[in-house]
């Protein structure tokens, strides 16, 4: 199995250096070859397990519960403006 690492890295929002690409392609290929052994098992009638306990969705009331930590949260933000996290411009154009 040869993985298109560049395309996967694009999906994962990670920029890769050229030397990393080669090694990661090899590593991922090796790991996926190992994982290939699962295809030998017949599982047509086997349900998937996403979670081992028989628990159900837990709901709560959608109400505000002020934590009073806005300042604490924003103090360590990489960049802030007022009560907001600030990021570089999202929408390009005029």
């Amino acid at each position: 199995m040869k993985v298109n690492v560049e395309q996967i890295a694009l999906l994962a929002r990670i920029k890769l250096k050229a030397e990393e690409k080669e090694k990661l392609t090899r590593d991922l290929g090796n790991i996926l070859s190992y994982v290939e052994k699962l295809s030998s098992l017949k599982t047509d009638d086997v349900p998937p397990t996403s979670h081992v306990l028989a628990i159900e969705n837990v709901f709560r009331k959608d109400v505000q519960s002020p934590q009073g930590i806005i300042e604490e949260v924003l103090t360590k933000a990489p960049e802030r403006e007022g009560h907001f996290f600030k990021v570089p411009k999202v929408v390009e154009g005029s």
Partner: protein
Amino acid sequence: MPFAKATLKELREEIKKDRSAIRSACQALGERIGKKDSGIRAYISFDASRLEADIERLVREKNPAITEKPLFGIPVSLKDNLCTRGWETTCASRILKGYIPPYDATVVERLRANGAIIFGKCNMDEFAFGSSTESSCYGPTANPWDLSRVPGGSSGGSAACVAADEAIAALGSDTGGSIRQPASLCGVVGVKPTYGRVSRYGLIAFGSSLDQIGPLTKTVEDAAILTNVIAGHDPKDSTSANASVPDFTQACRPDVKGLRIGLPREYFVPGLDKEVETAVKKAAEKLASMGAIVTEISLPHTEYAVAVYYIVAVAEASSNLGRFDGVQYGYRYPANHLSDMYFETRDRGFGGEAKRRILLGTFVLSAGYYDAYYLQGQKVRTLIKRDFDHAFRQVDVILTPVSPTPAFKIGERTEDPLAMYLSDIFTIPMNLAGIPAISVPCGFSKENLPIGVQFAAKHFDEETMFRAAYAFEQSTDFHKKKAGV
């Protein structure tokens, strides 16, 4: 009393006799760190002055509702993926450097509410991705039994500080063996409770269907004391189970008469180190001589566990790590465009193993590959879980090796990710099935490296697990031997 060497239970008795033992213990551990930790590097952050206010408050405490708490005055160290309010929590990753949580993890809250002092934050593999504590952005931790070897991982710092008497006890997290394997390699006790037993609120997530928090301690009884405190339902973690929590210390009694113990034949296969095999089989013989009924059992899908794990765990990891984008906290690469900020922040913030797992996880979840990898992985996970369901109709406890080998050399497996992944071959199945398991010292190799034995039990049957582990431990002296560091 040599305070740094004390078990949690011993220190508790000392504190009951004389309150000043709280200060003496913290000082003794601090001195030990000062002398030894430059060689071991078990701690990411330890600062004696940070403890002063807690020590002062507890030494003067008069309220018996507090002084009689099970961890009153006990220092406990934490893996650095557990959030501590006002105290940097990094997951040993550059991307979280500078992150100061505005809240305590539920386990941390429970430790504090039960009188504990949060002592220091321990080194780990970056985001708990690893079996050797070598992928930490702070550099590797060394094994206190042999500084040229790894302590195991990913909770390697938590295991090493307990083994080196730089801590009384510690908490770690276990997704595929990350508490039990380092406990085994460092000669201490490590518990992964049942999935759902302990709240993960405030644990920085890795594989959400697998992660559990648990203790690393000097004795089985100490582990039971800590499990008592951290277990229980938490409304803030909707995957925590609403099951009643028994007093696990009551299960610690030296009696295994009639206990049915199974040895899965698939765990004693080529690749298992001979010395490990001998030590583990001797443990089974010892328990048989004490009245346990030991039989061979089969867990036929064992050989598929690592493959399932490296699909399920990385898929969940890639999703969980999507939140690290430089927007709200931690590291941000200053770029002019939002997209560049994401790509550069994640390139510079994540280490090699984290990138490998994020990419692998993204791949197995991507369109066209989902059914072949992720869905098939989840189906085989069902088969592995059924193996255990079936086995537990015949036996009460399953006894296995923890790690196929004693501690390996630093650098030995870093170039071959697959060799590293196979370090967890005997611990991963328990995470996939969600069952509780414990690692207990059961011998030493010719090179004087610790070897551990694993006891696994049914969902929410930690009592039987503790009972077998305690009875074995009390019939041997392995846990009393100290690392030579």
